[in-house]
């Protein structure tokens, strides 16, 4: 007759395969949580062996845009905590309220935020946080190069958080993307995300990057081959200072 622990070992291999029934899986995970080194070793060994099944499949390559999407996601992965409510003047409150109402209305209308997997309430909260902070700058963006009719706004805080809205910017051609860059004095342009536009030419992107030593002076959007994030190579389509 098998000992109690031999029964766990039998389960360990099928657990690694992911084929235990629900209750058995819970029981085995409870056992693993006790710190059983032998079962852990069996699970680990079995997972390594099962990779043989996986390696036997003919490899398939994902499209290049997936990497861009992932990097966009991790750039904006940091969710800023709600800052303490600042002491604000009535004037600032009025300005903030007006801006917030307009922007939030547009966000809720679903016309500005197109980024996948970005919960809208998170974007909403983040934009409100930005607007609450008197240190946030609100800069107009001007169309240039191939898209003179494009326009936009860039909310930017030197903490590294920002939000860009664009309008009249045609959807990027197949294999291309709109890369967003921040430009600090005597520093190379820094990629902070990719903005997508809908068929009406509107789009938005929330940006959350680590703080840098040098304050950002300019913002630009360029049309790049998909996956370009190291340095701008394509034509500029939006810039924060008139060309």
């Amino acid at each position: 007759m098998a000992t109690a622990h031999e029964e766990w070992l039998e389960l360990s291999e099928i657990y690694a395969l992911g084929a235990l029934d629900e209750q058995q899986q819970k029981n085995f995970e409870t056992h693993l949580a006790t710190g059983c080194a032998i079962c852990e070793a069996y699970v680990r060994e079995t997972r390594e062996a099962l990779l043989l099944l996986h390696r036997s499949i003919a490899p398939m390559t994902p499209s290049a845009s997936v990497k861009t999407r992932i990097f966009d996601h991790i750039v904006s992965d940091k969710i800023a905590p709600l800052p303490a409510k600042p002491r604000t003047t009535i004037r600032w409150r009025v300005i903030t309220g007006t801006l917030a109402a307009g922007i939030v209305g547009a966000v809720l209308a679903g016309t500005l935020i197109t980024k996948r997997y970005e919960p809208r309430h998170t974007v909403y909260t983040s934009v409100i946080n930005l607007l609450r902070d008197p240190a946030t700058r609100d800069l107009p963006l001007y169309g240039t190069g191939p898209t003179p009719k494009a326009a936009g706004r860039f909310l930017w805080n030197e903490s590294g958080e920002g939000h860009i809205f664009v309008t009249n910017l045609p959807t990027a051609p197949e294999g291309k993307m709109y890369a967003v860059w921040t430009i600090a004095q005597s520093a190379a342009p820094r990629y902070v995300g990719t903005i997508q536009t809908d068929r009406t030419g509107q789009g938005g992107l929330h940006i959350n990057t680590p703080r840098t030593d040098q304050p950002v002076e300019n913002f630009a959007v360029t049309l790049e081959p998909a996956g370009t994030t190291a340095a701008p190579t394509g034509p500029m389509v939006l810039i924060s200072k008139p060309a």
Partner: protein
Amino acid sequence: MPADLTTATHLIQQVANQDRDAFSQLYDRFSTLVFTLAMRMLKARSDAEDLLQEVFVQVWRQAQSYSAERGSPEAWIINIARSRAIDKIRSIRRMQKSFVLTDDPAQAESSHNVESSAAESETRLAMNSALANLPDTQRKVLELAYFDGLTQSEIADRLAEPLGTVKTRMRSGIQKLKEILGTKLA
């Protein structure tokens, strides 16, 4: 430890420190593996690319939790991918089961469908010589669990085999894989 494993482990350690260059290298190294598995499990390209994104976002967020003592980087990343894919497959299956039972019982997955699926997987798999040594009955139960996310009871039902037989085939197949890999514990 082999040099490539050391490198991958080092990359994960750098990713834990929010190093995006290291993350880019890690992605370049493992994205094809993850995507290939995702395509095999989820079938649709868009679903597979979504899964690939979810997996690497999780890798970015949880790199600090990786420990080389608990397995190779490849096994860690693939385990994340399989867990997520199985969750999706089982969720879809639960929905389909309700829908099919309500509307058209004849469309419910049958052992015939499973056989077709297994036959399809055989043609899709470019089996290497080592895996070709695995008996078909063992390989089939492993594939149904590994790629299709079926539990041992579901496999027994669908193949109309006793649960004990399925368990035995699974464990024999796994033992064979371990022998092939040479990782069997002394």
